[in-house]
């Protein structure tokens, strides 16, 4: 895949994110410019406090840059209001969290459907999609279970299904395997590989080297800036093999 053929899905243009702590100004992201292309599978790595979560929050439109612009699927977010950002999240973005973050009072099927519920014009086939995804992640027979009745790995599968239900342009995962034992973590990573093979765009934050190595590309951060970019250690075709 040549550099020219990349279709930008997430474009950061001179993004700075500052936190004010009393007198001190912390720059979690410092004049950050980068483009994630369609179908790419990125691991974001870096030491603690380097700005990985901040980057992911900006990518996920839950946080706004202090300055600079961010474009999702070609849409500039700088001038969007809170409702428009929310709509963007529910349509174009999928989140997978470290601690699963399922909603306890909803069953598996309902949890998977949550993002659709918040769309201005939800699709009619939402439930069908959710069922298919549940089957896809191997939880077809657990649809009416509550999160408390599932194991950690199962909960994370539900979370992944939930992240896919709105057919997002970008799937974001922050330490998605951080709470899981290594065997279960591998299963989840296999799932990400499959998604990548299907052409999904994935950005996965991790501080574990072996997790990072499974991604197609690796982006290293340091003090809110890019330290290094390692491309093509693994191809989409390679993941399928």
């Amino acid at each position, binding site marked *: 895949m040549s550099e020219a053929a990349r279709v930008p899905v997430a474009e950061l243009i001179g993004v700075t994110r500052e936190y004010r702590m009393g007198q001190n100004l912390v720059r979690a992201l410092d004049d950050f410019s980068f483009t994630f292309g369609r179908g790419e599978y990125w691991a974001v790595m870096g030491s603690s406090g380097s700005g990985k979560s901040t980057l992911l*929050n900006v990518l*996920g439109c*839950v*946080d706004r840059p202090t300055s600079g612009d961010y474009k999702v699927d070609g849409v500039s977010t700088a001038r969007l209001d*809170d*409702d428009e950002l*929310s*709509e963007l*999240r*529910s*349509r174009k*973005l999928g*989140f997978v*969290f470290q601690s699963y*973050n399922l*909603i*306890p*009072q*909803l069953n598996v099927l309902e949890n998977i459907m*949550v*993002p659709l*519920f*918040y*769309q201005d*014009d*939800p699709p009619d086939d939402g439930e069908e999609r959710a069922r298919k995804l549940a089957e896809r992640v191997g939880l077809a027979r657990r649809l009416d279970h509550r999160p408390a009745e599932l194991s950690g790995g199962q909960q994370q599968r539900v979370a992944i299904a*939930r992240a896919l239900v*709105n057919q997002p342009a970008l799937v974001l995962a922050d330490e998605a395997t951080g709470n899981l034992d290594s065997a279960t973590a591998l299963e989840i990573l296999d799932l990400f590989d499959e998604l990548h093979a299907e052409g999904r765009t994935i950005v996965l934050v991790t501080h574990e080297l072996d997790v990072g190595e499974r991604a197609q590309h690796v982006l290293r951060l340091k003090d809110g800036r890019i330290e290094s970019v390692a491309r093509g250690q693994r191809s989409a075709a390679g993941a399928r093999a």
Partner: protein
Amino acid sequence: MKHSTLARTVKLGISSLLLHKLRSLLTTLGVLFGTSSVIAMLAIGEGASEEAQEQIRQLGSRNVILRSVKPREDFATGGGQSVRVLSYGLTEQDLGRIAETFPSVARVVPVREIYEEVRFSDRMLNPRVMATLPVYRDVTGRVVSEGRFLSDQDEEGVANVCVLSYEAARYLFPVSSPIGEQIKIGADYYTVVGTTLDRLRQRSDLVGAGKSSAEVFIPLETGRKWYGSMQVKLRAGSREMEEVELHEIVVEVEDATQVEFVANACREMLKRNHKQSDYEIVVPLELLMRAEETKRIFNIVLGSIASISLLVGGIGIMNVMLATVTERTREIGIRRALGAKRHHIVSQFLVECVVLSVGGGLLGVALGLATPLVVEHFAQMRTIITPTAPILAFLISSGVGVLFGIYPAWRAATMDPVEALRHE
């Protein structure tokens, strides 16, 4: 689409509340008791006031009632076993003056009471035996249930006929119809020609009437002929002679607006012509107005109590919801990250508040409707549930949920999603 969204939000709210059943139940208690006490108190208050007003209305709102009252015995001489004659009360002269003097007086009806027992076979009764004119029925609004009331022919013919009130008829003739039967009043026989309908069983002391509403009516002339104005009254230890010309004069005024004027004029006139205060004046309209004023004050007090209890209920809900919002900060962060807009979060928490307060309100309405039944059964009080009371109480209690839910819901919706997600 909108409809199913709301339905889903309500369903979600209920399932969130069911996650903490006891807490949710306890939260509704404030609104529950607030609502039920409002309905119950309104029903009891309404019943009591209606009963008082009914009694007053029965006396006739266009009437002024003059009654003879035995003066205080400070000056009474003699004692022991001696027979005294006590002369007091309204006179035929008073009656004539009132009828002639005031043009706004429509009718004037004299009443004499006869202190005699009434018997039928082995049954004996001490009713209020009243010798009066046929118009008494009309002026005091009594309704004939069987037979007829006294007539002009009875009056002219000085007939020995009588009419029984419902209470008297029921006691003397528990099974058969009294019409045409001969009853004994004192030593004389009277033919029963009619009965009147039930009036309120109890007459409150408010209007100074006797406790029993057992009444027997006979023609005025018959009363005059057989029982002179001098009557013997048996009292503890002594026999007492009383001389009373008229026991009661019912003055009917043409127009309700004139009642006050006529009452005052009567008061003035009696004051001038009576050396002692051996009479009283009852003005049902005044009593009615006073009863309405009392009711108004009662309603204000009730309204204050109700607002305070609903306020307390509302604060209870707000308190719990604020805690819930804090407790569910993370859930709010997740929902926001997954695309929930602020209004989604607002409606989610508002719906929970409304479910709580509407739930409390519904239970409160149920309890509030049941309480008057219990009170009625055990305290023998009349209660009236006006349809507006439960509806109003219910609407207000739901409103309380919305009102006190706004702040917690706003707090939830304005949380920073990133901060909320980091919340442990």
